[in-house]
């Protein structure tokens, strides 16, 4: 009886565990504009204290390591309705509130190799657009823009 119960539990776990572990739950995915095997997955879009927090996974689907290199200061939100854009927030020392950074150069540089079939996570904090647009776009250097993103309600 015990063995049967354990078996049943394992079957259930086996059927759901891989999904949980491997799922990306991406809100939207965009390709690199230099290498279509590199994709950025927007996995979180959170609004709190008039600040938009974004989390992304940079995924290397190719068979070799790829170098990614950009400055976080180049990340921005676009409010097309009101023709405005908002750059990533910077702290009192001029560093972008974003990461991970390979160096503090120019407010924070993202210069990393991503091995084949591996992922790097990034995050950034940006101002919530002032005019309450229905949708926004997010621009990440080197990738096609994430468009028509619906902002969630403030937490």
């Amino acid at each position: 009886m015990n063995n049967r119960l354990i078996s049943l539990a394992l079957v259930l776990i086996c059927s759901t565990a891989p999904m949980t572990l491997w799922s990306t739950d991406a809100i939207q995915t965009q390709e690199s504009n230099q290498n279509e095997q590199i994709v950025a997955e927007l996995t979180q879009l959170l609004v709190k204290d008039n600040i938009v927090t974004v989390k992304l996974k940079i995924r290397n689907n190719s068979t070799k390591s790829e170098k990614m290199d950009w400055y976080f200061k180049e990340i921005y939100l676009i409010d097309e309705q009101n023709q405005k854009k908002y750059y990533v927030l910077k702290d009192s020392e001029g560093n972008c509130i974003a990461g991970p950074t390979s160096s503090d150069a120019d407010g924070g540089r993202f210069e990393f190799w991503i091995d084949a079939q591996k992922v790097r996570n990034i995050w950034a904090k940006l101002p919530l657009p002032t005019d309450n647009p229905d949708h926004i776009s997010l621009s990440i250097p080197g990738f096609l823009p994430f468009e028509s993103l619906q902002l969630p309600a403030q937490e």
Partner: protein
Amino acid sequence: MNRLLRIQLTIFFCLYAVGLTSQSDETPIPADAQTKAIAALAKLGPKRGALPLRAKMLPIVGVVSGLKSDMVQMKKNLRDLRARVSDSEILIALSGDVLFDFDKWAIRKDAIPMLQKVLSVIIGSKSQQITISGHSDSIGSEEYNQKLSLKRAEAVRDWLMKESKLSANSFTVAGLGETKPIAPNSRPDGSDDPEGRQRNRRVEFSIQTLKGRAN
């Protein structure tokens, strides 16, 4: 424990292990990030740093023939060089192993086509501010690596000047030796990582663009 149960346990642990290894290293957002962001936002005032979204338009002052083909060639060169183009600069990294023989700073003949592409990008960008930095792996003394990387950066600058009308004032040259690795020189167990070292042996070009200079 019966056989079926053992098989199921094995499958479960295999799936779990594969699932774990396919995951990335999560980089948690620092605990003080939101506090810093609130302070940064307050500093920006009611407009929250909003900038007008409009493309900078340049006036057309003449008819330029072959512009389209130049643009196509520029894009191809940037793609071939795996250049990283941002608002303010174009970043290009060339492997030291392609440019130079071991322990030498004379440019290899095989590397000339690649350097010609770099030169085309520099000329196409109309940049007058180019930083060339040489980098090495960690084999050898720091002092030696710094000198070798500087000589290599200088050799590249000299070639670019020889092949163009660019003056020495347009270039900043640095030998950074082993101080700025982009990959590990050794593996976690302390053994040599030749692939990582190969990545670290490089010459980087930072080409400041017009837009970057305006900021």
